[in-house]
């Protein structure tokens, strides 16, 4: 399973990528929408984990652009905004496969990734 983590918090995606690596999941990361789009031009990924808010572009718009480049790519969104309404509205608007709240529980993240990849 190859994962692309996209969040403007570099220390977050670096750490998360290392933790996923320890668990045998190959994870790359990007901190801007442009870098994320470049990465999926250069490499194949099974799944992208996106922050809802990324500098210069919303996670929702980035999701659309990434989906256009790689229609088979699956998505999990991360958000720091914790209300149930945000969650529901965001899922409905994006069609994201899953939403996770920050701070993310890595075992929950891996569980969602595994479910998505076996669907």
């Amino acid at each position: 399973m190859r994962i692309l983590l996209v969040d403007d918090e570099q220390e977050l995606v670096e750490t998360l990528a290392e933790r996923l690596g320890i668990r045998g999941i190959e994870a790359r990361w990007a901190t801007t929408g442009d870098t994320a789009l470049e990465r999926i031009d250069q490499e194949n990924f099974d799944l992208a984990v996106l922050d809802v808010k990324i500098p210069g572009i919303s996670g929702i718009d980035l999701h659309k652009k990434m989906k256009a480049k790689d229609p088979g790519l699956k998505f999990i969104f991360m958000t720091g905004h914790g209300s149930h309404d945000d969650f529901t509205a965001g899922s409905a608007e994006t069609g994201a496969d899953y939403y996770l709240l920050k701070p993310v529980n890595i075992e929950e993240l891996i569980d969602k990734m595994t479910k998505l990849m076996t669907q």
Partner: protein
Amino acid sequence: MDRQLDTGIETGLQFFGKMTASISHEIKNVMAIINESAGLLEDYSLMAEKGMPIDPERLRVVSDRVANQIRRANGITKNLNSLAHSVDEFQKSVDIKETLELAVGLTGRFADMRSVILDFQPPSDFPAVITSPFHLLNLIWQVLDFAMDASGAGKRVELTFEAGPTSVKIRFTGIEALTNVPETVFPTAKEAALLHMLGATIHQDAEKGEINLVLPKDVRQQVTAES
């Protein structure tokens, strides 16, 4: 007059809500990084228990990361505290440099989201102004919010200030797309209400890409002079 006061109060509450929501988002990010760092240390412990050697440098990187985030959280909470205390007194002596530093600090995340750089260049002389610190912060945010959207391709808004005998001028420059914005768009009723409360005026120079906010050095004298 009453409608303007209502607009000023409404704008103030919206500003307070927007800033505290942004701060809570930033704190969430700090917590997320500390959470992952703690998890990574746990992973290293489990690896060590299984006899896998752990390079001390990896531990140092995680330790530095946590220390960085604690420093960051300290800055964020300091800004939150200053914002909260800005409503303690509705008129007081305010250090313009500190107020602009706080405004830039509070706006930082919004600037990052728009990929705009805020560049505050204070002069060597820091005048004190008797004004409403909260409404001043609110007005500076309103101008910055507009200026960031109108910063054009340069994506850089510069701030500085200069003191005159009875007033202080806060200059916002680098607003490259100001020529594309009709004059009726800014200031809105919100800024007008805040300008009235502060006895301040705002001037735009579209050709120079500049907005100047002129504050009286003592809002009490300004109000007295008007009444």
